[in-house]
């Protein structure tokens, strides 16, 4: 293999890791600020201007805290679980085009680590492996709340994989490719070509499933503070808990990218304006994660399962069938 290719890929991986680790930290800052403003509070104000350095303070705190391994936990699994969450979150980023290709000093850069032709399948598959973080962490913790959380996370993630997969099937039938770049180029003609117009139902379903798979608030029952403490994170401390956190926030960013690329036209024709539009769309979806957290209550686990299997899955199947019929005739 070409040495330049290997070096370029490693540089891309490092950049993505650094940028999204930092964004995960900033994401907590934005979440606290947005939630505070929506609840007529001020949020973090004292560390740095407008509390901006709160992120750094929290990072230093997490890094320097004692790494407690409780007595009765299954130690190797307990230790590896947060790494699985963070690692799978970042691995999913490998097939996501964050930016249209651009040329620097005559060298064309593709801002995607691996342009595989099964991109979205890879992204969904790796995000599905992310289930093992909460599941193993919760089961290894020797804590009943963690155990409940592990059981819930297994149920929720596997159920909503069905929704996200089935809802994506219809747009993928239209595009005829699994590569996220092909999906993006399919909609390059402008706002009228966006898949959201031809597949609004799939868009809503995938959006709902995204909330379940990132474990955000209407479907936050995996780590619901008021009933199971912090769920799978109860026994974790220091940077191991921080890895769960980084994984969750990185997942939120990546799933926002995926929604924006598949349904809302991505970076369009690849111009600079299109690239910034992609960032705006991602910012909106990320903001929506925070917005719903301020506005909506959580649903019960049984309601969540009911919603998945009795409502969303039939709708997704009907959507696929109708799309197929329309394409045939």
């Amino acid at each position, binding site marked *: 293999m070409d040495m330049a290719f290997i070096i370029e890929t490693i540089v891309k991986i490092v950049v993505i890791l650094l940028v999204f680790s930092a964004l995960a930290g900033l994401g907590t800052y934005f979440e606290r600020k*947005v939630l505070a*403003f*929506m*609840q*007529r*509070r*001020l949020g973090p*104000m004292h560390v740095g201007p407008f509390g901006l350095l709160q992120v750094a303070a929290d990072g230093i705190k997490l890094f320097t805290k004692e790494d407690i391994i409780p007595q009765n936990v299954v130690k190797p699994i307990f230790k590896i679980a947060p790494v699985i969450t963070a690692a799978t979150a970042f691995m999913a980023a490998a097939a996501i085009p964050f930016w249209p290709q651009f040329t620097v000093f005559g060298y064309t850069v593709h801002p995607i680590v691996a342009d595989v032709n099964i991109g979205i399948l890879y992204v969904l598959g790796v995000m599905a492996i992310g289930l093992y973080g909460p599941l193993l962490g919760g089961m290894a913790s020797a804590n009943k709340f963690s155990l409940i959380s592990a059981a819930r996370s297994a149920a929720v993630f596997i159920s909503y994989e069905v929704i996200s997969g089935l809802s994506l099937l219809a747009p993928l039938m239209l595009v005829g490719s699994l590569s996220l770049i092909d999906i993006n180029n399919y909609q390059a003609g402008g706002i009228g070509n966006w898949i959201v117009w031809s597949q609004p139902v799939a868009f809503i379903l995938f959006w709902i499933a995204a909330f379940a798979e990132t474990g955000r608030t209407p479907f936050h029952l995996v780590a619901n503070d008021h009933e199971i403490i912090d769920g799978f994170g109860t026994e974790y401390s220091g940077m191991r808990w921080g890895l769960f956190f980084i994984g969750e926030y990185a997942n939120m960013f990546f799933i926002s990218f995926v929604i924006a690329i598949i349904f809302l036209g991505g970076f369009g024709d690849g111009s600079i304006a299109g690239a910034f539009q992609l960032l705006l769309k991602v910012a909106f979806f990320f903001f929506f994660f925070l*917005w*719903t957290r*301020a*506005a*909506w209550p959580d649903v019960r686990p049984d309601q969540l399962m009911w919603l998945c299997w009795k409502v969303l899955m039939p709708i997704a199947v009907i959507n696929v069938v109708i799309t197929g019929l329309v394409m045939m005739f």
Partner: protein
Amino acid sequence: MHSEPLNDRNVSEHSAYYYVDIEEYPTTGWDKFKQVVKRTFRGELFVGLWVVMREMIKFDIHTVKYPLEKLPIGPRYRAVHKLLRLWESGYERCIGCGLCEKICISDCIRMDTKIDENSRKEVTEYSINLGRCIFCGYCAEVCPELAIVHGQRYENGSEQRAHFVIKDDMLTPLDFLTSGQQAEYPGFGAITPNESVTKTPLAY
């Protein structure tokens, strides 16, 4: 307003009580389905989204940044006690009558008096045990000379809380008095500041 209709707890035309109108719970599957559809498309989730977004846009923040900003407290707030001085002479108002010591229900006021060389009663020691004081305000209420009052000082972080309530700390400093900063406790019969409260004459 007379409360007879409220005393009759039975639901009838004469009483003020009535049953809250609650819809029947759906029993058949079709009714349940209709309820779900109605609730789904009523758009209440968007009302919630709009409410929080409206508050964010209005940006009507209610946070009080406490050590930097303080809320005003009521004029008759009962915080740590103060001993006041006479406005004209600067002499202590306390005449050592001991009424506060007597009325104190948690028995936390302690005072020592003596007759000084002008054959006036002088208060040599005056202390309040803050470990026992319940801030009921009886001492300020009973004081015939408006000498002991409650102040507005509610931030009592200290190594020794006794430091707030020995006589030298409670008594208004003389420079405070001359610059007119001695606050009167606006209770019953309170004087307005700078109104003359004179030393009780010996011949009284």
